[in-house]
């Protein structure tokens, strides 16, 4: 159990990379990229978790009650914004590529002719 979160994080990242390397459709590829992103959420929150501690919100519990690490949670909040913004940008690019080339296959859309 003590290494499970790290294994899950590595698994999510690895699976995502496998998906990107084998993807033949940019929209699918962007989905795989967000799987990679979720690996970082799991890793960070896993690092801050504490058995038996509550959430770092002292509304129902008085301050001083054991609580998990709030720092990593703040980091993950930023990370989620990063994921959403990058996905939006990538989708916009994929859309434009499709409008121009009529395909979403990364192996047909290349920066140079005749490659």
């Amino acid at each position, binding site marked *: 159990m003590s290494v499970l979160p790290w294994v899950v994080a590595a698994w999510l*990242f690895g699976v995502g990379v496998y998906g*990107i390397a084998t993807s033949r459709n940019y929209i699918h590829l962007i989905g795989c990229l967000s799987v990679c992103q979720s690996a970082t959420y799991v*890793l960070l929150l896993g690092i801050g978790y504490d058995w038996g501690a509550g959430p770092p919100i002292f509304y129902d519990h008085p301050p001083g009650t054991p609580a998990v690490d709030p720092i990593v949670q703040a980091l993950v909040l930023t990370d989620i914004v990063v994921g959403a*913004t990058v996905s939006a940008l990538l989708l916009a*690019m994929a859309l434009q590529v499709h409008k121009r080339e009529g395909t979403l296959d990364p192996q047909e859309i290349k*920066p140079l002719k005749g*490659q």
Partner: protein
Amino acid sequence: MTLLDVLVPFPVVLPLAVGAIVLALGERLPKHAPEALGIAAALAVAGLSAVLSRGALDAGTPVYWFGGWEPRPGVTLGIAFAPDPASAGIAAFIGLLFAAALVFAWGFFDEVRSTFNVLMLLFLAAMQGFCLTRDLFNLFVWFEVMSVAAYALTGFSLKRASLAGALNFTVVNSLGSMLMLAGIGLVYARAGALDFEAVREAVGRAGHDPVIVGGFCLVSVALLTKAAILPFQFWLADAHAVAPSPVSVIFSGSMVPIGLFGFAKIAVQVFPGSPDAGSILHGLLFGVGCATAVVGGLLAWSQRHLKRLLAFSTIGHIGIMLTGVAALSPVGLAGALAYLVGHGLVKGTLFMLVGVLLAEKAGVDELNLRGLGRDIWPAGVLTGLAALLLGGAPLGLLHGGADLVSAAAPDGLAGWAMHLSVLVGTALTGGAVLRFAGRVYLGLGPDPGDEAEAPTDEEQEKADRPLWLMLAPCILLLGIDVLVPADLAEHMAARVLPQFAHLAAGSVAVPPPTGWTAVEPWLALLGAVAVAGVALFRDRVPRILPAAGGMFKPVVAGLNRLHTGVINDYVVWMALGVAMFAAWATF
């Protein structure tokens, strides 16, 4: 709090505020107001950072705790900026480069009005934050802001090539960012802190610790991906070759190099206490730097599309900077920093000159443009001068940096490998640009006839801009590089570096010049001229020379074939690169 302290956040806050104002007012602003505001903000940022750099040199590095969260006994709570003279100096150079690029871009982006200027301002602010921060996660945030602005700017022209380049760039660099965040997570798990100083103490206590090494490797991979070090360099040529010229100026002149700057900063300010990180830097990355210099030079040499040529030359030059950092000597580090600025000035100029060709001649293909550049000869003169500087001409700041890097070479075989790869990288990139200038502006070289069409799309950039407006920033940047006396780099190394690398003042001693340091720049320059000459006068030189060059053809062709432009491949290369780090660290 002194006046200097008050200024610390403004290199970041000022462009952010101007960007938000331009966005909020949007179309309500007068026609050229966003551009004028952008240039003014960039100049102000350059001035602010220069003042900070100067002030830190005289009075020591200020530490600015945002929100007044000074560290408490045993725990650092807040985020700090620490503008040491070197970091703030680099930040000032970036402000200057932005101002030049924005002047160059005047009238370029009328079509999209203020959006371009908003993105450039955020891009500028992010780079300033990246240079000045002293907090690992804050570094990541600015790294990301920088990346997001860059992704969008790459795809600007909406042509197939630029969208494909932007997609490759975005996917590879996003993966890098995720690895960086994971690395920061690992460091945090062990150190329980994010502030550079606090982490450095924890790293020193940890000794041989897999968690720290893992964190170092992951953060390094992200920064070296941005810096386009082998084998993470594949995205660069695709992105730089298709971005609008003013954006390429920023990419090659500052974004890619400060990836390496960030890496150097992390290495000396956060991980100096980890013996394993030192071994990776001094062993693995030293070799990788040499290889990057040579491969970048070879690939640059083999291009006929000037933007791709310059993109690969940037890879070669970053490789040279990495060898300076990896030599693990203060002199090499100082050399890499001086080289960074000099290279940015020259390479920024060259990308602007590419923009001149795109605007005036609607193309940058070397063979198609043969002799067509005669009527814009001032651009030709500048290209030639920049080519000589790139090829090692013993003049100015770039040369000063190269000299220091060379002086830092270790003894023995490794040292000679480094000298040789720096020499090859310098000569090939300089020679390639020189060849291009000779062919396009002087009409030299054999007539290609109806040789195969250029392998890129038709491209033209907005044409109705005055030539003098485009050339003025080129002259400014090149002039700065040339007029900086070469010994200034040495002088600065001794004064600036101690605060950057946490060394005692006066401890950085530049070794006296040897015979080799006097010969090296001339050798490189000779090589560059020879390489260009053989290509341009193939029929008039002894047969053996082109034949000798031809021996490398299969290697170069093989290297070019690896740059498939397919993102699937690039991700595999990236995984292999991470594996390289892991294998080195484990075994």
